[in-house]
């Protein structure tokens, strides 16, 4: 166990349905996703978020901003390309919370991060994507497809594990 948070936090992958005609229907479609809470003046809202090491940002569906009362009107906008087209994304600094998985004793982690809210969300099962800037720089994330689990630990765990001089998150 690591500090007040009780790291490591080990989350099971979630299972999504496959298309009935899929070539791969014999094996489950599993995603590394965690429940994350968006905080705002109108209260919290928790969603499943895909843990995506290939994404540079934390990205979220626009309805989440409305749900928690984040005003996007003055937010700077950046067009981003995802498969299927480009989207306008409004970036704000927001507050997030990650809680330990069920059965693990620990204090939830809250942190500030830059969050990009899409104009329209492509509607996957998850409401947000946790990428490199804002998530992978706050936590050490270890994934195992064999175990179908991911482990979340403090940001400096990687450095301690591999003997690398640490650089604290900004």
């Amino acid at each position, binding site marked *: 166990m690591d500090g007040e948070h009780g790291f490591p936090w080990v989350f099971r*992958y*979630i299972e*999504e349905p496959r298309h009935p005609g899929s070539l791969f229907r014999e094996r489950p479609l599993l995603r590394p996703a965690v*429940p994350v809470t968006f905080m705002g003046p109108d209260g919290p809202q928790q969603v499943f978020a895909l843990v995506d090491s290939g994404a540079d940002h934390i990205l979220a*569906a626009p309805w989440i901003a409305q749900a928690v009362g984040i005003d996007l009107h003055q937010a700077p906008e950046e067009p981003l390309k995802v498969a299927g087209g480009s989207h306008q994304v409004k970036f704000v600094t927001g507050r997030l919370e990650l809680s330990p998985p069920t059965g693990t004793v620990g204090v939830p982690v809250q942190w500030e991060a830059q969050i990009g809210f899409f104009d329209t969300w492509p509607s996957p*099962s998850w409401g947000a994507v946790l990428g490199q800037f804002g998530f992978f720089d706050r936590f050490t994330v270890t994934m195992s497809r064999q175990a179908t689990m991911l482990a979340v630990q403090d940001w400096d765990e990687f450095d301690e594990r591999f003997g690398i001089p640490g650089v604290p998150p900004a």
Partner: protein
Amino acid sequence: MATEQSSGRFSVAALQKEYAGCWVALRGTTVIEANANPYDLVAQLRRRRIKDTIILRVPDVDELETVGLG
């Protein structure tokens, strides 16, 4: 509604029969509200003063597999 399999893994697939194409709000493994529109779902929750749910979308039955955000 049970959405966890014997593996202990959360299964969106288990929700598809009843909630295909909907956004659902869960408390634990129980569906509290569901709606095809996430804004309407949040409004339903706010009207009932419910703030302790987790929201996700259940894909339609014939929906293709999502790759990244595509």
